[in-house]
């Protein structure tokens, strides 16, 4: 894995960078249907990533054919990153983490962002709420 300064490479991936609960995250652009600002359906506010502070935006994804929206604080932008700036979680972390919602990590601007598995995150959150109810 080679990390270098951000260059436009043939092998690139699109990510949506967003802020949620005071931390910066990333999610694969492919899993985001749309970015919205008005809450029409119930936005999901309770996930392992924490609760949004002011929920200005929503990330819409399709889960089992239905649209679901994750409430986030800000959407910073849609970016193209080199494919090798994306890495899976270390095995120990992957095995011991009590969530399926983190797919990996993205090296961006000298920090590691959590690469969120949006559908899994939402599915998990719905499982949590149904088990609580």
């Amino acid at each position: 894995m080679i990390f270098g300064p951000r260059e436009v490479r043939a092998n690139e991936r699109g990510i949506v960078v967003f802020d949620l609960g005071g931390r910066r995250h990333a999610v694969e652009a492919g899993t985001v249907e749309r970015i919205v600002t008005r809450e029409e359906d119930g936005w999901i506010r309770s996930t392992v990533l924490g609760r949004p502070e002011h929920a200005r935006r929503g990330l819409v994804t399709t889960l089992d054919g239905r649209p679901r929206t994750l409430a986030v604080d800000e959407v910073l932008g849609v970016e193209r990153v080199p494919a090798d700036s994306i890495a899976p979680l270390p095995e120990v972390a992957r095995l011991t983490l009590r969530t399926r919602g983190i797919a990996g990590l993205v090296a961006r601007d000298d920090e590691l962002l959590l690469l969120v598995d949006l559908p899994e995150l939402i599915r998990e959150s719905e499982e949590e709420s149904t088990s609580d109810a």
Partner: protein
Amino acid sequence: MRKTSATKEPSRAKARTDAGQAEAIFRVLEKLATGDYGERIDVEAIDSPHIKKIATLVNAVAEHATEQIRTAQERNQNLRNGVQEALDAILRVVNQGELSGSTGIRSDNPILEPMIRGIDQLLETLRAFTLEMGEASLQISASSAEVLAAATQHESSMTHQASAVHETTATMAELKSAAGNIADNARTVAAVAEQTVVAARAGEAALRSLFQAIATISQDAEAIHEAMERLSRRVERIGSVVEVIDEIADRSDLLALNAALEGAKAGEAGRGFSIVAAEMRRLAENVLASTQEIKTLIGEIREATDETARATERNRASAKEGEEQANQAMQSVQAILTGIEETSDAARVIHLATQQQRSATEQVVQSMTDLEAATRQAQQGAAQAAGAAAELAKLADRLSSLARRFRVS
């Protein structure tokens, strides 16, 4: 032997013999010597004519003595009775004050008679004296009552006068010192008044300009207030416009995001699209940043205008108040000016008058002091007189009651 009722039956001494007869005579003589005149000699029983004669003489002596004694006793008794009566009479006088009659005792007893006459005279004298005493005490009583009344009256008048004099003296003293002060002050007042007139005129001028200034402030305040109102309204309008722009910018941002998303999903083909979308986002971000700045600015302006409005309001209110107060001050100053001018003239007059008044007052004070002294003396005299009169009245009373104890008619 003869018997007398006054004496007891003389005992017959039977004389049989001469010796025996002489014995009997001696016995009787011994008794006579001892004061016992009760014995008689039985003369018939005596034969001897000489002894018979002696015996008869002895009997006669005894008889005579007895008679003498009896008479003396009678006379004594009479005397005693008379004295007792006189004594009773005196006692009546003493105990019951009975002076109305004499003793009522007649006696031709030479010893008794003068005594009784003396007592009668005494009673007479006493009676006369008592009558006189009664009258006199009545007179004294009346007079002393009059004196007491008069003295009391006098005393109270004296007290009133004394206190009145005292007050007057005190007032006069105050007046004197006040007059003195006024006289001194009048000179100063005259001078000060002159200065004050000058100062007051200057003050009047200053007030007038202050008045002007306040009026101007008031007008200005009004103007500011109106200007503030206008500004506020404009700011409000800007605020609502900014809100609209904000909304639009946000929607643009969203559009740009979604466009970029599509571009990313399209991979290589969507690269150009992504770039355009990115630019649009930057634009929207700029607009949003600007509107944020404007919003902040509007907020500041609003705060400032609110503050100014409040201040202006305060200014207006205080300007109004100031105007009123200035007005009042003006009036006061004008009044003062008038007063001062009068005072200035008056001061000069006062100065002269007080000079005269001062000496006059001094005189009055002196007279008052004298009068006060005199009054005090009179007061004391009156008090003494009153006291004496009271004493006298008491005495008269006692006398009167004494006299009343005796019945004189």
